[in-house]
């Protein structure tokens, strides 16, 4: 286990350096000029001389590797620089957006699992029955709707027409319901189909026939055998989704004005706010690595073949 952890950690560090360096290069190659943006923000007309001076101040004239090394070193100390856009430290910007996105992610993912596991299992259990066909039709519909469309429909229905929720989401429970619901519904449509397939696959396995031959009741076969075995592929799915959602669900966050990472990233990209973009990439890389690590660990817990 220690060897497994050591190898995983080594891999994590390597991948982390790779991702951040690549993104560092990409922003470096980008044609727009951060010094110019900074000067424009302060209202100073950018002359050649002033530009050069600002570049020097910002350290933009040094070699790429040196700049990357500096940035990495500072980041280790918890300093990711300051936003070009508003002069605030990148770390505090991220810290502000992070809990918002984390809350949205956790609430939606919980809803997705609560919706999709029972529906997926029931569809598989009564495959090709009226319930299965109806659910498949609805999930097909929701899976093909873009999330922003559903978000707009929700806004129109629940905020404008019924007035249940404010158009601009406040923080807290009242604000999270609509964005979480939109996320959960679109994702559930896909999850129900996945869970259905996974459960059908399990049901066709020989140990199910074996359990039936031993006289195990159908209900128990479904709950203590099938669901238990389906945990492994479902965990993999959840891992992938969590990693993606923790990076901020840009579209839904923007439609509902939810002040999460997706919105922060969107604003940073529009304003060519490199330090913030860079900080965002670091977070994305970290979260992907961390979630994958946790998924790997959970395999050890779920699958005896990995454990032994």
């Amino acid at each position, binding site marked *: 286990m220690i060897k497994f952890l050591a190898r995983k950690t080594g891999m994590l560090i390597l991948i982390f350096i790779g991702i951040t360096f690549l993104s560092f290069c990409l922003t470096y190659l980008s044609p727009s000029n951060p010094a110019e943006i900074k000067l424009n923000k302060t209202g100073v007309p950018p002359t050649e001389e002033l530009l050069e001076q600002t570049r020097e101040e910002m350290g933009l004239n040094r070699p790429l590797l040196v700049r990357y090394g500096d940035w990495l070193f500072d980041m280790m100390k918890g300093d990711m620089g300051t936003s070009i856009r508003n002069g605030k430290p990148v770390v505090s910007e991220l810290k502000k957006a992070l809990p918002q996105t984390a809350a949205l992610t956790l609430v939606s993912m919980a809803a997705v699992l609560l919706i999709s596991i029972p529906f997926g299992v029931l569809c598989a259990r009564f495959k090709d029955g009226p319930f299965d066909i109806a659910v498949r039709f609805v999930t097909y519909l929701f899976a093909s709707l873009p999330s922003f469309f559903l978000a707009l429909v929700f806004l129109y229905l629940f905020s404008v027409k019924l007035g249940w929720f404010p158009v601009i989401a406040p923080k807290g429970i009242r604000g999270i319901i609509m964005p979480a619901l939109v996320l959960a519904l679109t994702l559930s449509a896909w999850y129900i189909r996945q869970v259905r397939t996974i459960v059908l696959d399990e049901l066709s*396995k*020989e*140990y199910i*026939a*074996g*359990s*039936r*031959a*031993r*006289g*195990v*009741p159908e209900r*128990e076969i479904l709950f203590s*055998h099938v669901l*238990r*075995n389906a945990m492994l592929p479902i965990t993999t799915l959840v891992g992938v989704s969590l990693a993606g959602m923790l990076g901020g669900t840009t579209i839904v966050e923007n439609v509902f004005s939810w002040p999460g990472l997706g919105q922060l990233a969107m604003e940073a990209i529009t304003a060519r706010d490199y330090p913030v973009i860079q900080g965002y990439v670091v977070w994305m890389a970290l979260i992907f690595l961390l979630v994958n690590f946790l998924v790997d660990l959970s395999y050890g817990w*779920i*699958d*005896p*073949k990995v454990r*032994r």
Partner: protein
Amino acid sequence: MLEVKNITVAYGSDTVVKDVSFAVKPGEVIGIVGESGSGKSTVLKSILGLLDSRGKVLGGEILLNGENLLGFTSGRMRQIRGKEIAMVFQHPELSLDPVWPVGRSFYESIRVHREITKKEAAVQGRKLLEALELGEPDKILSSYPFELSGGMCQRAAIAIAMANRPGILLADEPTSALDVTVQKQVIETMMQMRKEFSASILIVSHNIGVIAKMADFVGVMRRGQMVEWGTKEEVLYSPEHDYTKALIRAVPKMGGELPAAAEEVGHG
């Protein structure tokens, strides 16, 4: 006593078993041979009511001590499975839940039929495995199916099948996925079970060597029909049907005599 009377089974519009009859009397070992697709496994599945959704018994009766199993509700059928009639499969490591230790499957198969504590089940499991001389019973009970060798796993699966002392054990190609060297052990385990619990065994195999070693009566199936039936001696040493003759001729290393072939368990 189990009597199969004139059963006909179809998958969709495809009739795979036609008018098959035979009886399994207490303590007897019945062997059914036939090539794959001959319908012999379907007969076993029909007895336990385990045909998949497309399969249907179109006619005939399956009588267990005089009662027709085909008329049973699914709830009542569940009480028969594993308690009155148990079954072992071709791939033991696949027929047991892969994420459960063997001991837990053993406990489950008793628990679904009568109240028992985990401890009691463990004691019984240990006893049964000891009687079968399977080495370290505790280690086997705490192992996952994938951790056991094929032969060991099949013998453990047989022990699990016998957990409730069923009167009849159905065996669907129980040795076909195993090495020749361990086939003999599995056969011995089954024969030991029969002796210990005076159970009857209905074994289905394409391996004539296995059938010759175990069976008292032999049925030969071809394209869904029972083409020959009789005592082992009648069927294997003086076959009447051409298909049976061909099957026996196909057993390698015969040297012109069947007894030699019968000893060579596993060539099939």
